[in-house]
């Protein structure tokens, strides 16, 4: 088998190039079929996400160039994408695929979506018959590696976006967010995103206050929340457990005296202020009050970057896992390759033939050269006739998804082993076996 992987990703190609090469989901099955029509491709699949487009193929005899296919399929001149391409073969292709599936090659290392995307690409290609024996094994292994990386390292455990850090902090304060009330002051994109995350984690009610009341209403509608007129902000804000501020006000909107009022109304239940406005909306002095927690945009950003750094450390562990797995897979491929099996099968039978001739030679007495050749031809003929069908079956099996089972079966039937050491041991056993048999005679 000859694995080849060719593609572009967010590191090698700008979005203008990636979008030219992207394959929309609806056209993916068709693209896979087209890929299979390429004369050098025996199996193939296509991973196309917003950050990468990759063609993975099992090439016949290792020949052929997927660049031609790309320029033909996308109707783009080679020169336009060639400089952005990366190409991997054999073990490097395996490694790259393992890294992609494990999210080590992602823009945000450790993000979980990519594995799902690769799985979908695999399912699509498989459905149109483009993925068969070898590619199937490769992909199955890639998913297992991704799972190992996820369970054995902490690569996906920390939050690496502002919104998810906000959720994490809120959970550190409130335990679970069930029934917690979120108050948006200012109706920006970022606060909307944070609110969405909080809601997804169980927060129940949303209030929106904005200088322009219309915008407050529109935003509130998105969440099934309640719009509040800005003038009533201080009267209503004590209901909120989590306050997200993002107004364009030039001065602080929340100062310690407000917070003290909220706290006494709330009977000192904690409040969490997330201030994503610049200039800030919340007086940092408020953070000194018991039960008030204030995080501004820099604090959140800081948390994000510590987490990113943590992930980098975990990524090193993950790379080690991937390397080990590439080697394992390589070794597995070799044993599964039918050629060594055929060779060792032939060796095995040849050893038996020789041993048997040596055994009866004594009884045959002295033979003429012609007779010697006849015995040789007879025994060889029998073996070759018997071997013909198994060997051709093995050769066909190599192109079949069932090859693993057939190869395994043959190896077990004839007790074939792979390593040199085993071969030496076999020879030794054959010799002692011979002398034993000689003694019996």
């Amino acid at each position, binding site marked *: 088998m000859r694995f080849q992987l060719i593609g572009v990703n967010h590191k090698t190609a700008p979005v203008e190039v990636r979008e030219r090469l992207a394959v929309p989901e609806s056209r993916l099955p068709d693209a896979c079929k087209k890929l299979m029509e390429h004369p050098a491709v025996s199996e193939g699949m296509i991973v196309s996400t917003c950050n990468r487009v990759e063609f993975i193929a099992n090439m016949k005899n290792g020949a052929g160039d997927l660049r031609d296919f790309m320029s033909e399929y996308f109707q783009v001149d080679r020169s336009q994408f060639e400089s952005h391409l990366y190409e991997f073969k054999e073990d490097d292709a395996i490694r790259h695929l393992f890294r992609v599936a494990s999210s080590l090659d992602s823009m945000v290392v450790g993000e979980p979506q990519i594995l799902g995307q690769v799985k979908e690409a695999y399912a699509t290609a498989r459905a149109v018959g483009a993925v068969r024996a070898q590619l199937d094994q490769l992909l199955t292994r890639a998913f297992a590696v991704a799972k190992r990386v996820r369970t054995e390292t902490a690569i996906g455990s920390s939050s690496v976006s502002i919104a998810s850090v906000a959720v994490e902090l809120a959970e550190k*304060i*409130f335990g679970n967010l069930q029934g917690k009330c979120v108050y948006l002051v200012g109706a920006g994109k970022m606060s909307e995103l944070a609110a969405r995350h909080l809601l997804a984690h169980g927060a129940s009610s949303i209030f929106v206050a904005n200088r322009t009341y219309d915008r407050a209403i529109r935003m509130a509608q998105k969440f099934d929340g309640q719009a509040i007129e800005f003038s009533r902000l201080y009267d209503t804000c004590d209901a909120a457990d989590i306050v997200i501020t993002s107004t364009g006000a030039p001065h602080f909107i929340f100062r310690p005296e407000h917070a003290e009022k909220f706290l006494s109304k*709330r009977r000192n239940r904690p409040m969490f202020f997330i201030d994503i406005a610049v200039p800030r909306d919340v007086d940092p002095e408020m953070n000194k009050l*018991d*039960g008030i*927690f204030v*995080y501004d945009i820099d*604090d959140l950003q800081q948390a994000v970057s510590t987490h990113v750094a943590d992930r980098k450390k975990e990524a090193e562990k993950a790379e080690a896992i991937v390397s080990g797995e590439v080697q394992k897979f390589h070794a597995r491929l070799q044993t599964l390759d039918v050629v060594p099996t055929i060779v060792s099968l032939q060796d095995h039978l040849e050893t038996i033939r020789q041993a048997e001739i040596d055994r009866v030679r004594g009884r045959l007495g002295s033979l003429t050269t012609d007779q010697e050749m006849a015995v040789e031809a007879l025994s060889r003929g029998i073996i070759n006739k018997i071997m013909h069908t198994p060997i051709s079956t093995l050769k066909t099996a190599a192109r079949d998804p069932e090859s693993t089972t057939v190869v395994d079966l043959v190896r077990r039937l004839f007790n074939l082993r792979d390593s040199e050491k085993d071969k030496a041991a076999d020879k030794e056993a054959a010799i002692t076996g011979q002398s034993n048999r000689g003694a019996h005679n």
Partner: protein
Amino acid sequence: MSLTWLRVALAFYGVGLLYALVALTRTSEILSKIALHAAYLGMVFHLVSLTEAVVQSGQLASASIHNAESLLAFLIMIVFMLAYLVYKTTSPGIVVFPLVFLLTFVAATNQQPLVVTSVAVKHSWLAVHILMIFTGYAALFLSFGASILYLLQERALKSKSRSGMFSRLPSLQVIDDIGYRSLMLGFPFMTLGLIAGSVVAAFAYGKVDFLDPKILLSVLMWAVYLLMVYTRLEAGWRGRRAAMLASVAFVTAIVAWIANYFSGMHRFIAS
């Protein structure tokens, strides 16, 4: 014999102590599991030791007095385990394990048999008094421990440094719940215990001597306890202010304990 079992229990609590010390610097999931299982085993041996003491003396009351520290340690462990069952966190162990270890250690090394001179010992009200008061103590200790953890976690959240043991401490809300519930659990026990004590005193001596240092301090502690419950229910005090009150109650409790040695009514040791 009960002393032997107690020492075995002590050894297991020692693992808990180790966990508490390690947990101050870093977090170890495995150690927390080991500590938990050691604590289970410790409690089993502890219970054996206590049961044997009761069987030996034939009386619940005198056994409780003889093994006061041991009984208190056991009750604290029970409250801790209840909190664990509900909240699945061993974090309060950071405060609880050293205390339990200390109490058990004192009980396990104290070989001198106590001579009970008080006339009141045979009274079954006394057993109620002791058990109630001790359960109250145990709950108070856990509440105190929780308020310390609350302070630590609050400080960590405010300082925005999210590393070390604080990242693995339970959320503020959970710590607060543990503190609040043990506070609410302990109060009725403490109150009933004091009432039972007054009944004992009234029967035994005909009056309650409020000037006795032990009784004075106990009443003071109860007053602080009441204040804690009140401020919590009315003003929702938690965090720093609650921890301060809990510390006062804790110190009063310790002083009241020491006052055993100066109290006319509670001095059981023949001098």
